[in-house]
């Protein structure tokens, strides 16, 4: 490759990287500046961090919001992993004509926009008196067809010999799933768990509809409502955004391999 091309290659990637990272730097600096400084585009660290953090505590109940988000994300991730892996396992290892039809229907349902089901869902939960409950946030998200698809794809790598050996040893089909399949598919569970957690943690539209009282609000809802003020307190909001983004950034850096594996699961 000519020298010119090489320079161009590095320059292009450097610019793309800077553009990608800049909003993160902006967020960190922003948390240390006042709203006025942020609106005027100040790109230097300031001294307002403690003040912003204190104001955040006065404006919203951040502990409650964090605990709501965490409860919802953890419970729905665990349920989703169990339900989707059972289904992926069943569809792959017990193939039958009718199951394939059900499976195709599940895959097609991935194309259904959430907007097309949110009104009946809202009415359904209203009828059950479940509006403003954490259960209502969790229930519609735990049969995510993408996850079933992901587990089925990965089950193709599950060793048949292992399955046969377990049957010979006298384990029943559910014991095989519980004692053999789950431990051998750890990395698949990790990858799927990360995606499930992030999806739930960052969810906005459905919680916005179904959660109504302040005591039930999640981090995303709190951040969104802070920023919709006529004069948004951006310094305070940046602190909240950092708190909300920290778990996902940590997961990304600590478990990058599983993270990417989970994302790519769909194109194997």
């Amino acid at each position, binding site marked *: 490759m000519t020298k010119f*091309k090489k320079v161009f290659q590095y320059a292009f990637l450097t610019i793309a990287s800077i553009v990608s990272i800049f909003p993160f730097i902006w967020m960190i600096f922003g948390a240390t500046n006042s709203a006025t400084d942020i609106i005027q585009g100040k790109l230097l660290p300031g001294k307002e961090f403690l003040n912003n953090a204190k104001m955040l505590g006065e404006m919203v109940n951040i502990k409650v919001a964090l605990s709501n988000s965490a409860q919802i994300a953890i419970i729905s991730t665990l349920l989703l992993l169990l339900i989707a892996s059972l289904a992926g396992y069943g569809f792959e290892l017990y193939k039958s004509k009718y199951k394939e039809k059900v499976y195709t229907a599940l895959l097609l349902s991935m194309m*259904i926009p959430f907007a097309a089901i949110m009104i009946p869902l809202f009415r359904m939960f209203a009828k059950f008196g479940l509006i403003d409950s954490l259960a209502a946030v969790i229930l519609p998200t735990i049969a995510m067809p993408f996850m079933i698809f992901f587990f089925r794809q990965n089950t193709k790598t599950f060793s*048949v010999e292992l399955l046969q050996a377990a049957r010979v040893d006298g384990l029943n089909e559910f014991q095989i799933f519980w004692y053999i399949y789950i431990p051998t598919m750890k990395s698949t569970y990790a990858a799927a768990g990360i995606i499930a957690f992030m999806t739930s943690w960052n969810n906005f539209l459905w919680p916005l509809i179904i959660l109504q009282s302040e005591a039930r609000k999640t981090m995303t809802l709190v*951040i*969104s409502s802070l920023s919709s003020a006529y004069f948004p307190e951006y310094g305070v909001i940046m602190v909240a955004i950092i708190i909300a983004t920290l778990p996902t950034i940590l997961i990304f850096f600590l478990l990058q391999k599983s993270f990417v594996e989970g994302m790519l699961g*769909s194109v194997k």
Partner: protein
Amino acid sequence: MGKFKRNTLDKSKGITGWNFVVIATALAAIFTLYPVINSLVLSTMSGKGVVYEYVGLGNIKRLFSDLVFRTALKNTFIYFIFQVPIMLTLALIIASVLNDKKLKFKGLFRTAIFLPCVTSLVAYSILFKSMFGADGIVNSTLLAINLIAEPISWLRDPLWSKVTVILAITWRWTGYNMIFYLAGLQNINPNIYEAAEIDGASKVRQFFTITVPLLKPIILFTSIMSTIGTLQLFDEVVNLTGGGASTPSLNATITLSQYIYDLSFKFVPNFGYAATVSYVIVFFIAILAIIQFKMAGDKND
């Protein structure tokens, strides 16, 4: 048929198999299938609040004279037509530039460009809102390097606010799509590129004659996923521009999903009409998916 052969189904195994899939299937039936059918039924009804009457195709008729609907449909398509191709092309270019064995700091570049994916849609929309204000960092930078003569009204002008939404989405999702392309590129035998190099094919030519055709299935996948995502756009417009630009009544950035939300939960609820609008999205996703499959299929088989 051996007893232990994989996928062999005697009768009891058949029922066991159903036991594994029954929870997921039941949940999908209750929380997806039933609502979809219910939406269709609702779309033939109209009313405010709790009183509903059957109107047949009345709601569809109403769509044609509804100016806000037209604006939302137009906006959604503008986002789709400009944003998806720009983002996918950019992702593909970055992936091919990154896919170079001799490249230094490859992991660093890849991580940096992928990083936007960890932010929630709400969080990054607000970050962009704070950067694109009238006196904000974007305007002051562009002014300082003399790219613009006066500040651009990124969040309020009907045209520029759409540009801001497109820029923001592109920032968030380009790295995501790039990862898919990188994974695809790793499966292409490097000898093909070496052979092309020896034959004197330029990098640009290699891109169009090797990379694009070989990645077609992944490009198809990403474009369908992006289509579904863009047609459902909600979080970004609500948090970035509030759907409104200078006044909410202008609806300069409103999308179909946002209009459905407004019809159902912001105004006096008209669930029937909102359901009709939601079926417009279903309709377009289906049509566009079929078109994309056809386009990819023609040259693939």
